[in-house]
């Protein structure tokens, strides 16, 4: 989903540089209250893991491949603003070291993958999770809503990408939109799957490291298992 240079016109990429730049600036300001000492190694490790995961293109229908973005996962693990910055770091490294995504389009790529697939889908998840947690319990509510909103985040990001391409006059909206949303509704299934797998592994081993988990007081995995049986 990384937009290269040339696909967007200056008014579109300029606007998105402005929107993304100010969102990132706000995130940098916000994390001063939430970035604890223990989050620093986790920030580095999450970014490194997401970089590796984004390299793993998997085949989807018709000679196309897709890769995960894991913007929602980063927000769930670290908190929304730290999660946003994690994806921004990954996108910047991809742009400056690997020419994956253009420099002019970096603002747009941050908007699509860090803000829409990360921050926005996190905000939507927060709304939906609360009533769900009352019925299913915190853990099941978190995992099921993560699956849904990880998928939706990718689909919305691809829709945003299609809108940007058509605003730039690169391709008409009625052609870009169904093509992009169609293929990404398949790629989003992979995103949902990987998000849930990683989230449940972390919940199983170190639930205290999942920022979005607001369940009952936590015990180490071994103790919890003993208590259950």
């Amino acid at each position: 989903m990384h937009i290269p240079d040339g696909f967007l016109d200056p008014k579109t990429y300029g606007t998105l540089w402005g929107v993304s730049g100010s969102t990132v600036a706000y995130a940098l300001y916000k994390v001063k209250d939430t970035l604890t000492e223990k989050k620093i190694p986790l920030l580095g490790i999450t970014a490194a893991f997401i970089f590796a995961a984004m390299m793993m293109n998997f085949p989807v229908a018709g000679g196309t491949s897709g890769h995960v973005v894991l913007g929602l996962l980063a927000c769930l693990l670290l908190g929304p603003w730290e999660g946003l910055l994690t994806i921004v770091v990954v996108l910047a490294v991809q742009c400056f070291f690997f020419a994956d995504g253009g420099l002019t389009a970096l603002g747009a790529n941050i908007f699509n993958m860090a803000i829409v697939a990360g921050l926005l889908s996190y905000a939507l998840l927060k709304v939906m999770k609360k009533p769900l947690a009352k019925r299913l319990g915190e853990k099941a509510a978190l995992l099921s809503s993560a699956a849904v909103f990880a998928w939706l985040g990718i689909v919305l990001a691809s829709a945003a990408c299609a809108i940007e391409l058509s605003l730039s006059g690169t391709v008409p909206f009625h052609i870009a939109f169904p093509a992009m949303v169609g293929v990404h509704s398949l790629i989003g299934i992979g995103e949902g799957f990987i998000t849930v797998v990683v989230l449940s592994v972390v919940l199983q081993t170190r639930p205290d490291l999942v920022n979005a988990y607001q369940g009952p007081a936590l015990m180490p995995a071994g103790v919890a298992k003993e208590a259950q049986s």
Partner: protein
Amino acid sequence: MKLDMKGSLKRNRAIWIFAGAALVVAILVGTFASPFASKSPDGLDHTAEAKGFAKKEAKDAWSYAPMKEYAYPGIKSKGVSTGLSGLIGVLITLAVAAVVGLLLYGLGRIWKKKDDESSGIPLSET
């Protein structure tokens, strides 16, 4: 206070162990699995080819990327070239994110200190 310190150290040690394990996974995926990733164009590239706007792609505005297309230059084997660039990418990302985290944490502490000094009475009490 003493107990608190001990508990915090213990918790942080566990976090470092967890982080280490996650890093091993990231390095293994980035190095040894990445050469086996699908080479097909991704969703956007495929759409660009199918809908005829792939030709609009311009020269890179940033032309100094050392490992374009995830290929470490000068290595004949594509697999090794991809794997090596993946390994380097994982380590660069780790370093950049950790430095960003450290800087923000440090700045946050300086900021908070200033706040504490400038406001004598907490607003919440009034």
